[in-house]
């Protein structure tokens, strides 16, 4: 396995890192007026990277043939699937940004740049087959994300979000690193393949501690309960395009990473970590459902919604089966579509002066003044609540199907009952828009890019999405098979 072949296998990361460096130079010399051009350059780089990623997804690449840099990195179907989702989410967050930031003043050139670097980090995360690659990817992503959260420098809430995210994120990284060092100490290797082989016989107490700490660190990154406290504050404080990004791409990356660690490196010890994941999943569903009820800010509400959704995705992980992993991947794809749709709709909520509207009470009667926007937001809400015939139902459906097939009926029952209080607050948004008298504040406005993105995500989560469910399921299954190739 020569260097050149390895470099070709990481083509997507090559392109993105090089583009990122070029963008850095352009930004340094050109200043903020290049921001819009850089945004499009970033989108083009993401599209090119996606073009290099697609073949791996279509051809069931797995195991040794996907391995690059001597087992440090894997360009298998699983990584390709997650990366495509990350690229789509990142491209959406790039596209919605210019009109948002330009309303607040000049858009900063750092924004597209940081997104691209974060995406490189996330690409490494989902491809990592070694604890060190994992950590480098995670930190690259996190450092970019901390800065992004604080990127509205005139806004105190943004600074608060950045600081909170940084302090707690650093703590979580520390916990993760501690777990990794324990694992290394007891397994004697940092490679996932090696860990799997060494721990074949059984898990020593030390390695178990390592695994637990790693899961705790990762639970922070996916904002699962009990490590979710930062999420509402960061989502609320960060500028909305950044929140769009946080709610989608890093979730995909961190969940994929968790899947690779749990299902591959520790894949023979499912019964050991299962109870941890079950607890985290059920707690996330319940806290996500109950925490949102009192929220008056739609971004905070969507933050709790993402906690709730992560809980459902983790139910798939808790099964420890290939069908559970495939269900997670399907759910992730649908979740990205719903979140992008939801946040783009939120971005389009503006008052008469063009300022962003975030309070739920301000969108009262939106269905009279802006029927299409209200309809879109209502679709997102019903879809997040998992009400058929919207496509959000399909995500919950596959996850619960996997759970039932794995014999976890009680967990499935608890989780699905937990989705009922969640439906309550999704309905609240619909109620405010449809049943209440118009507050006369919202005068939704968005440029063509917003409308195009909103339309795309609406098509994806509408019942038309079911037409793609067979195809999506096939891709997810190929990706999950790549993850389980050693089993």
């Amino acid at each position: 396995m020569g260097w050149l072949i390895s470099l070709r296998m990481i083509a997507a990361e090559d392109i993105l890192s090089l583009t990122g460096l070029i963008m850095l130079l352009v930004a340094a010399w050109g200043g903020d007026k290049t921001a819009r051009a850089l945004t499009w350059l970033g989108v083009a780089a993401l599209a090119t990277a996606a073009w290099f990623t697609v073949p791996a997804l279509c051809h069931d690449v797995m195991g040794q043939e996907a391995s690059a840099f001597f087992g440090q990195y894997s360009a298998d179907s699983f990584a390709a699937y997650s990366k495509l989702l990350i690229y789509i989410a990142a491209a959406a967050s790039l596209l919605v940004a210019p009109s948002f930031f330009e309303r607040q003043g000049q858009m900063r050139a750092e924004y597209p740049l940081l997104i691209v670097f974060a995406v490189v980090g996330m690409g490494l995360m989902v491809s990592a087959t070694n604890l060190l690659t994992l950590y480098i990817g995670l930190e690259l992503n996190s450092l970019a994300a901390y800065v992004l959260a604080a990127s509205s420098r005139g806004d105190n809430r943004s600074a608060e979000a950045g600081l909170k995210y940084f302090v707690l994120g650093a703590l979580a990284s520390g916990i993760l690193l501690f777990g990794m060092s324990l694992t290394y100490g007891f397994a004697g290797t940092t490679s996932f393949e090696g860990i799997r082989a060494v721990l074949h016989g059984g898990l020593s107490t030390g390695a178990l501690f390592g695994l637990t700490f790693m899961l705790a660190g990762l639970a922070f990154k996916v904002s699962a309960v009990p490590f979710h406290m930062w999420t509402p504050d960061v989502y609320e404080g960060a500028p909305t395009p950044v929140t769009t990004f946080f709610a989608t791409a890093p979730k995909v990356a961190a969940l994929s990473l968790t899947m690779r660690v749990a299902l591959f490196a520790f894949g023979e010890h499912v019964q050991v970590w299962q109870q941890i994941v079950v607890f985290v999943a059920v707690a996330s569903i319940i806290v996500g459902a109950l925490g949102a009820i009192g929220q008056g800010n739609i971004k905070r509400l969507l933050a709790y919604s993402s906690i709730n959704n992560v809980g459902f995705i983790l139910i798939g992980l808790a099964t420890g089966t290939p069908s559970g992993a495939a269900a997670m991947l399907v759910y992730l794809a649908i979740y990205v579509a719903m979140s992008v749709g939801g946040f783009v709709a939120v971005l389009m909520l503006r008052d008469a002066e063009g300022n962003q509207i975030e309070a739920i009470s301000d969108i009262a009667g939106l269905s009279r003044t802006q029927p299409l926007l209200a309809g879109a937001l209502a679709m997102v809400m019903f879809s997040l609540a998992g009400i058929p015939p919207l496509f959000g139902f399909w995500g919950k459906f596959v996850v619960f199907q996997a759970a039932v097939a794995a014999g976890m009926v009680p967990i499935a029952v608890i989780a699905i009952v937990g989705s009922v209080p969640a439906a309550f607050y999704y309905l609240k948004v619909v109620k405010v828009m449809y049943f209440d008298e118009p507050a006369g504040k919202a005068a939704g406005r968005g440029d063509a890019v917003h409308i195009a993105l909103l339309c795309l995500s609406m098509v994806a989560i509408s019942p038309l999405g079911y037409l793609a469910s067979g195809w999506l399921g096939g891709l997810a299954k190929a990706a999950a098979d790549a993850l389980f190739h050693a089993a």
Partner: protein
Amino acid sequence: MNGFPILSLMMAVPLVLSIVCLFVDGRTARVLALAATLIDFALGLVLWSHYQVGGAQWQFTERAPLFAGFQWALGIDGIALVLIMLTVFLMPICIGASWNSIEKRVPEYMAAFLFMETLMIGVFTAQDIYLFYIMFEAGLIPMYLIIGVWGGKDRIYASYKFFLYTLLGSVLMLIAMMWMVNEAGTTDVPTLMAYNFPVAAQKWLWLAFFASFAVKMPMWPVHTWLPDAHVQAPTAGSVILAGVLLKMGGYGFIRFSLPMFPEASAYFAPLIFALSMVAVVYTSLVALVQHDMKKLIAYSSVAHMGIVTIGLFAFNRQGLEGSVVVMLSHGLVAGALFLCVGVIYDRLHTREIDRYGGIAINMPQYAVLFMLFTMASVGLPGTSGFVGEFLSMIGIYQLSSWVALVSGTGIILGAAYMLYLYRRVVFGVQKNPDAAAMPDLDLRELAMLGAMAAVVMWMGVYPETFIAPIRADIATLDARLAQAKPKGDGQLTANGFPVQGWTVTAGSAR
């Protein structure tokens, strides 16, 4: 008719026109909605005329692989047929009832109703268990909006209550369905209906389905959403709620709970009897003291549905047949009663019983039709109500004379509260001048109520038209249930004495 996808067509017509409705103005939307529902009614008549009584159990079947293991599987038996007929008959009337009374956001209203129609037909025709679930659950969205946007003063509370109650019931059913599909390896409803699930699992599965259907039905004590929803919903919403949505619960028991889990059904039959008997007596008494006309009729619905559930779990043909007929009859009669309330509500904008009185003087036509539906609700011979209740009571009596006695009380109380309502509204002195000034029925109202009256009388005089299609299917279901029949005191022991007690013994549940 072979091979022509008439069921899909019946679902497609309202769906397509509901989308069209969203993009036109109110006046056009009304016409389009009426056209769509009338086309569906015509298609329903075609369906009925081509349905072969005594033919195959499942007719007009359509099978097409859809996606990811789902099938677009449709097909009807006689029970589904009569319920579809009920749906397509009530829908044009609902549109007619909303013609003038709905003034705001007419296109959305009509779109929601047409979408409901697609889903209701879908529920009764689905032959894939997940397809059924999707149709069953998707109905929440339009109904939530109908109650919430076009409803009365407390519409928001009522819409939430409706949505969350029903959702909680159905999500448990979803998990049960997944387990069943996992166990049986098929999503095909007819196959599952013949599948013998392990008895221990049946009990859990039965409870999960019960959670859903009992809320939908609704059974005491989870009926409390119904009075709220009925009172707050617009007239047409109440009609469709009482006429069709409640029937989904009963249909669910017939299609899923009874044939799929016969042993568990026998095991839990005493629970059903207990809850239903409480419902019959308690809600009848509650109905007696209501001041709000819609609330009164809503509580009477719960009482009637109690008789349906007892009849279903009586495990004999008269009980099952009677229950289906009560469902049909109640769909018509309760729908018609809500329309009657709607008629005077449109004139006076109040549902308070005390605000009316003596309107027989100024509204004689209305008084006659209202009388007919009141009598049908009470179960007077010659109306549809009698046939169903009579059959059910025969079935229930065979099971247990005590249960029959208590259910009979409900019928007597039913006569009390309905006649009391009628007397207070229609007879007496005209104490309220604006009630006395109300004009009689106009042509539109006369057409709607007249059509319903005709069907109610038809069903009362010649019920065979409606019983013939369901007879064979009830017999099939009865044969399936025969292996788990609860013993009742209506049966005689070998030496001629009644069997003591009506509870199911462990032995009869295999």
